[in-house]
């Protein structure tokens, strides 16, 4: 099946199977920033933005993305760089496997919630698992990054 998806602002046409997931379609197109973790909707490392909203690409059928806009971290390089600097300073990443999905989720949160509280941040990011950090340092880094942008 042919599907037309705008990925990071570029029009793309993919030939996909009816039961192919977006994670596989995009990784086959070299978007390696999108990671595969649980592959069953539980860990969030495969998060991309669908029309600006965070979704799990391991669970979204590629046919469902037809006619929609997808953003991966490559679409937010400048913004991601700032967050990644804070991550570095706060010791918020170790292997880095979860970082791009986390940065995309933070971006979605910022567009959805103005001035998020500590609780908002925790609640919004609950679905983004990280096996390395214990979350405290990530939380600090995100707060500092948000403060910088004010």
């Amino acid at each position, binding site marked *: 099946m042919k599907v037309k998806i705008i990925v990071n602002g570029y029009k793309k046409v993919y030939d996909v199977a009816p039961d192919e997931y977006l994670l596989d379609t995009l990784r086959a197109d070299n978007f390696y920033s999108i990671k595969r973790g649980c592959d069953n909707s539980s860990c969030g490392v495969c998060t991309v933005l669908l029309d600006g909203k965070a979704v799990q690409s391991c*669970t979204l059928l590629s046919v469902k993305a037809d006619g929609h806009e997808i953003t991966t971290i490559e679409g937010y390089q400048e913004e991601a760089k700032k967050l990644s600097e804070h991550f570095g300073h706060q010791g918020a990443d170790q292997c880095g496997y979860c970082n791009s999905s986390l940065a995309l989720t933070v971006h979605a949160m910022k567009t959805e919630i103005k001035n998020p509280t500590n609780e908002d941040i925790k609640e919004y990011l609950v679905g983004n698992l990280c096996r390395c950090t214990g979350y405290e340092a990530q939380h600090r880094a995100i707060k500092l990054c948000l403060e910088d942008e004010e």
Partner: protein
Amino acid sequence: MEIVNYFKAKTIEEAYQKLNEDPSNLIIGGGAWLRLSSKIVNTAIDLEHVGLNQIKETKNSIEIDAYVTLREVEKNEALANLFSSIINKGISGIMGVALRNLVTVGGSIFGKYSFSDFITPLLAVNTEVEMYKAGRMALEDFLKLRTREKDILLKIIIKKEKVLGYYYKMKKTGLDFAVINVGVTKTNGYYKIVVGARPSLAAYATSAMEYINNQKVITPKVIEDTAQIVVEELKFGTNSKASKEYRIELTKVYVKRGLKEVTK
């Protein structure tokens, strides 16, 4: 799940015709629960373009279409204001935002999941469902339907009334399913008590409701007795999440907290 063909219907009738063409054809909502199954689907029928994507407020009700995502419901302010946020709160305890942006009202109701954090609060308020062929019925009756007839869930309809409500999902970790979930409401002086994930599908505690609704004054003793009737009348069980005994103790605690909350 394997899908042989994918069909984006343009009308509900078209979707219904396709649904009945083959026993393995089905409607796909967000596809998140189906993804976990080992089903082989001949044609998955998508409702994105049939116009079931809205939350509408009418004079007497709030109508939520089947293809609306749970995240959209969670963020709806009218639901929060009318029903003490119990529906919004129920949804917010389901996994993360990125899943709630995908899963749909249709899939969440039609699946009749026993662990559902959506069905419990919906039962605690006044909810009906509208099916394409079977028409409109109370959510409670829909949940009891055993028919194998293929149909399409179009929307749910929640009566607008000022509800004092309480909802609690007891879970062991942030992203887990409920060990038990409890909804308690008071609407125009009438109490409803719903317990889900027992581990079976959410149900009213009808005897307990009858008892408390016949009391003139709600004393601590009445609340205690009501909670006791709840655990005596509903069936509880053991599964990998928790034992029957633990669920019974938890239910007593949360029913009491709920009743105290709505009688404040």
